[in-house]
């Protein structure tokens, strides 16, 4: 029975090709045609699929360019210093000039962590951009708002308005963040005229002219929370006004330049400072009056064909001139004698930094201050002697600074700096600083 079935099956299989051979060639052609048609359809679908895939790839490969999707850009600046000073930095002062209210010393002895900076920035909407830069001081664990402002991006015709706390547009380096300075500390002129670096609570209006030659002009109204204003005034209106203007452009391919003029007007109220009277007793004096500061600044940058990658050179200088008129109170806690005070003082610095190899820079800075003329009413009237105001005695501080730094990438810098500082009367100070500064996170653009 099974055997018969096997035979039948074998026969059927053997008969199949024969049957096919016999079948109609037209039918095969028809099948072939159908197959071709299906192949064409498949090709078409494949083509479509490919083009959608390309589109998808374009979309996938171009994710939104906002800073970290919708989170603000975050960056952290870390820095640490080793300081070696031949004179005690705690006794640092600039003779011939009214001490500013903050600490202006160049650093501390030994190893120390510098201020760490934490920055957030982002466009807020189509009208505003916001920036917050907080500095964390390592010792008393306090967080200071260094800058925290909004600025317009939605205005036209060259207008920008900035409000909040920001580095005032007085002079050139005052607007530059510490991590972007070419030397580890500020020029002496910034120490005596701006209390190191002036950040005001206020509002700034700026206009950029519609010319190919860069020209801007602006005004700032500030609270007057810092030197050269006095202590917090508790008053309506504003405590400081700053007018500024800049002119800048290119000279050929290789040179870019910018000059600026600014005028800061404040009215210090009970601006106090510590001194030692002729008897050697510690006294606190205070000034109330008008302070007028003029700053002329200039920057010139050179890079072969405008490509700073290998070699570049930067020359930067500022000239400060300040007039103060008002009343000086001697020993506010004791005698409290008051009479007029007027001073005409100035100072300048010039610095040059040369990148002689990729990643390596060398710089030199010269600082000079002129204590000018200071008329103290209490001395002129004979009530007190000049020896009662040792800090205001005529003296022209100066300083020479050299530095070399190594920048493994745009995000890190290691700097060695040496200064011979004649800030103190007849007491030259040798200052050696070894410093690292690094930035983490979002790539912040630097001002010119």
């Amino acid at each position, binding site marked *: 029975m099974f055997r018969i079935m096997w035979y039948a099956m074998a026969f059927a299989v053997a008969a199949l090709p024969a049957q096919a051979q016999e079948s109609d060639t037209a039918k095969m052609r028809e099948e072939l045609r159908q197959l071709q048609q299906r192949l064409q359809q498949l090709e078409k679908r494949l083509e479509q699929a490919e083009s959608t895939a390309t589109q998808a790839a374009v979309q996938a490969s*171009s994710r939104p360019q906002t800073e970290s999707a919708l989170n603000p850009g975050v960056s952290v600046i870390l820095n640490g210093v080793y300081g070696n000073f031949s004179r005690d930095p705690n006794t640092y002062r600039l003779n011939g000039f009214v001490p500013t209210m903050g600490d202006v010393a160049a650093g501390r002895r030994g190893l120390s962590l510098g201020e760490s900076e934490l920055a957030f920035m982002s466009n807020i909407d189509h009208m505003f951009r916001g920036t917050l830069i907080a500095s964390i001081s390592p010792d008393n664990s306090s967080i200071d708002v260094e800058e925290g402002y909004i600025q317009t991006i939605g205005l036209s015709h060259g207008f*920008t308005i900035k409000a909040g706390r920001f580095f005032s547009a007085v002079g050139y380096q005052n607007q530059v963040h510490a991590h972007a300075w070419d030397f580890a500390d500020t020029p002496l002129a910034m120490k005596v005229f701006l209390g190191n670096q002036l950040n005001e609570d206020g509002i700034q209006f700026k206009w950029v002219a519609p010319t190919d030659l860069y*020209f801007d002009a602006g005004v700032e109204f500030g609270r007057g929370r810092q030197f050269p204003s006095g202590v917090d005034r508790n008053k309506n209106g504003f405590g400081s006004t700053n007018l500024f203007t800049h002119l800048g452009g290119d000279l050929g391919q290789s040179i870019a330049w*910018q000059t600026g003029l600014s005028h800061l007007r404040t009215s210090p109220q009970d601006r106090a400072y510590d001194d030692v009277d002729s008897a050697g007793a510690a006294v606190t004096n205070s000034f109330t009056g008008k302070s007028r500061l003029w700053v002329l600044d200039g920057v010139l940058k050179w890079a072969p064909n*405008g490509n700073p990658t290998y070699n570049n050179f930067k020359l930067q200088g500022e000239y400060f001139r300040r007039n103060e008129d008002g009343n000086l109170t001697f020993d506010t806690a004791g005698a409290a004698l008051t009479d007029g005070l007027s001073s005409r003082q100035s100072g300048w610095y010039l610095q040059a930094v040369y990148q002689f190899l990729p990643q390596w820079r060398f710089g030199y800075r010269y600082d000079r201050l002129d204590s000018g003329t200071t008329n103290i009413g209490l001395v002129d009237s004979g009530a007190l002697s000049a020896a009662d105001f040792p800090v205001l005695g005529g003296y022209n501080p100066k300083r020479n600074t050299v530095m070399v730094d190594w920048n493994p990438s*745009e995000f890190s810098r290691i700097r060695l700096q040496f200064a011979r500082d004649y800030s103190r009367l007849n007491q030259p100070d040798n200052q050696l600083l070894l410093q690292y500064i690094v930035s983490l996170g979002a790539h912040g653009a*630097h*001002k*010119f």
Partner: protein
Amino acid sequence: MKTLLKLLLAIGAVLLAWPAAAALNVFACEPEWGALAQELGGDRVSVFSATTALQDPHRIEARPSLIARIRNADLVVCSGSELEVGWLPLLLTQSGNDRIQPGSPGFLEASQYVVKLEIPKVIDRALGDIHPAGNPHIHLDPRNIAKVAEVLTGRLVELDHANAELYKTRADAFARRWQPALESWTKRAAPLKGVPLVVYHKDMSYFINWSGMREAGALEPRPGIPPTPSHLADLVERMQRNPAKVIVYSPYNNPRAAEFLSERAKIPDVLLPFTVGGTEKAKDLFGLFDDTIDRLLATVK
């Protein structure tokens, strides 16, 4: 009195007509986009290129002259993908110009409209100055130029509607010249397929991808970090085992590292224009690709 009135009226008329008659100000971050805007806009656009072929577009200072130019721009065309992150954001915030802020029609990031290469899987600065959004040097693939041309035409039409027809005509004319040129470049570049090359920076990737060449190494140890002696020594050794056929560099690169490797590894080196203006023959976008392919063929042969 009458003449004065006439004069005043004439001045008034000129002032009223001026914005309409004035050309569209295009601020191009890189010369290739400036050249493309010029092709598409003709005399209706006034093009300013923020950088030249001799400048590294990563490392530009936000110079006053650039702020002055971007302040008056109607359209900003940049590669994007964080190539200009060190300077463009500052120009934009300082410009006082709302027409060219990101998101407005006056701001065009070319790399958003093409398929990007080398989107990093790991984003870590230890890997060098990498671009999280992918390689931004998109212009050396001629197909990308055609795509960006379409987008740019759209923007020109949107911003200067009065001249829409002119832009469309010019765009068609450009496409009619570009397409055959692209075909001829594809044919001429055929011998380059599979040819191993050493680049300076990862700025040739789109050309390599288009031409089918093969990257066998980079002179920079990591993107944005200049060549170091130890890395070059390592490259020399690698080239002895697996020699590349050619070492290429751009006008803004220092040729010394390429020359050093060329000498030691006995591999020819060649300067490629990289962008418009990079060599004498790279006068426009057509010349850029002509010269790039010519120089490679002449060296590899």
